[in-house]
């Protein structure tokens, strides 16, 4: 039988490890997929499934960049601005997204569709600028590619 509830899915994750606490990160990822971010409820759910306190779960989540402690847009656009990408024009790519979306880095559009942020080295340095769109890398991205990417996401959003 396929597990259905978050609680059951977390139990299944925990069974893969010698100690169930190891499942806290994959469990938080599952909870985030359900809620879109990690609201206080998510920490209660994960904590209950793994016999940890919600505070412990939040402490772990707050350490890692990919866990969101506040709501984010339906689409996540992340521009790498570490050295290799910056040397080949990452700032110009970022600014193109800022003007296309009407938000600054670190912000979410008012309609809740897009969050734009800069990230540290994504590991595509030879093909910069690397942009992660909903966790899939686009590389290389140039400023002139930006409007097409946003348009594609808007079209797919209907």
């Amino acid at each position: 039988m396929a597990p259905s509830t978050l609680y059951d899915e977390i139990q299944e994750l925990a069974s893969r490890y010698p100690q169930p606490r190891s499942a806290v990160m994959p469990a938080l990822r599952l909870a985030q997929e359900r809620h879109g971010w990690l609201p206080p409820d998510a920490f209660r759910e994960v904590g209950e499934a793994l016999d940890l306190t919600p505070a412990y779960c939040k402490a772990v989540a707050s350490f890692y960049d990919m866990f969101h402690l506040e709501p984010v847009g339906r689409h996540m656009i992340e521009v790498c601005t570490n050295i290799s990408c910056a040397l080949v024009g990452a700032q110009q790519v970022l600014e193109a997204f800022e003007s296309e979306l009407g938000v600054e880095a670190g912000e979410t559009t008012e309609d809740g569709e897009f969050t734009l942020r800069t990230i540290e080295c994504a590991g595509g340095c030879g093909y910069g600028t690397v942009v992660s769109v909903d966790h899939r890398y686009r590389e290389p991205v140039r400023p002139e590619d930006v409007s097409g990417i946003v348009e594609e996401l808007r079209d797919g959003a209907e």
Partner: protein
Amino acid sequence: MALSKEAQTKLLFANAEGRDLTKLAEYQNIGGYKSLKKALKMKREALLDELLTADVRGRGGAGFPMGRKASFLPKSEESVKPIYLVSNADESEPGTFKDREIIARLPHMYIEGCAIAARVIGANTAFIYIRGEYLTEFEILRDALEEAREAELVGPNVLGSGWDLTIVVHRGAGAYICGEETALLESLEGKRGQPRSKPPFPAISGVYASPTLINNVETLATVPKIIEIGGAEYAKLGVENSRGTRIFSLSGNVVNGGNYEVELGTNLRELVYDIGGGIPEGRELKAIIPGGSSVPVLTADEVDTALDFDAMAARGTMLGSGAVIVMDDRCCMVQLGLRVAQFYMHESCGKCTPCREGTRWMVSILRKIEEGDASQGELDLLLSVCDRILGNCLCPLGDAAAMPVASYVAKFRDEYQRHIDEGGCPFRGESTLDRVMAPVDQHHARIRAEIEVPA
């Protein structure tokens, strides 16, 4: 271009061109998993001997000899605790993207390497800690593992040998520090990824306080080749103290960025100019970071240096993770220092004071220098802060900020001095790294906005 192919000695990527080696059948067509079969018939001591003879050094950054590391673990039959293999696939040193390509193109070679290494130390469980951002690579690895399980290459009773091997893929969630081995173990145990005090070393007390061997992706992907051709044959490649081939990640202001597998000891000039195609748009080479952003920089005059551990040490730098970042004459070295310091400030876990506070001070002083607001004394203060970080923390993250920045000041002192003397950046907004928005700046901007605009 013809030369670039000839110049490469391919070991891992031999026969990879034009083949989909993510598929088990294709990998087996080129001899895949034969080394595992061979290893299962060999005694563990004999396997370890091959690794020791090969003299293969870790490809993650520290360059510790793999065979020796494996030899530090207690014998599995004498250990009261289970023994674990952990593979560090948390590649995140700026400039490095080779492990990603190995997983994406050679997942079975990597799995085979994990299996042989687990066999060497007598482990029944291996964990692969892959960085969270590598979603596509995670999926490729997961599918390859599933194929390997179905073919009984991993799982219970591997190839009828009576030996069980479970491989668990654990995804990170965005933290550079988890590439540090003890932080990785903490994270794998479901904690914040903060480094542990050593000793005890992981070989004695690693994950779940059990003996643990931790190896980088490229290191493990090399193991099947070593077993196939033999340690002695492998050691004929490369130069003394730097055996075999390495995959260098070439990036920055270079025509052909990408990963290139070459024999260790190859000249850096050859990598940048013959293989990499040189500097685009006819610009001048200014500086090269030879081993990821944490290592000291080389000037254009030092480009004739062999890509091996000793030659780099003689230049006062390191081969590190094999990430070669090329900068042309438009790059401001103060902005480079600032961006590097911002990265390490962002990634500092906060456990040790010199790193947590020192990286913040570095960023603050470097910003003042860049903006032309720094006094002469503050340049000395910057070096003093670097000096107080060095060697004073549990893990090398603080050093990884202090070493490169101190090297930029040492080798480009005139440029730093001009910022102070001229009251601003001499590039006047024309540097390639001008105004680059780092994640630390972005977070600060958001917090300020929240304070200034009450609900």
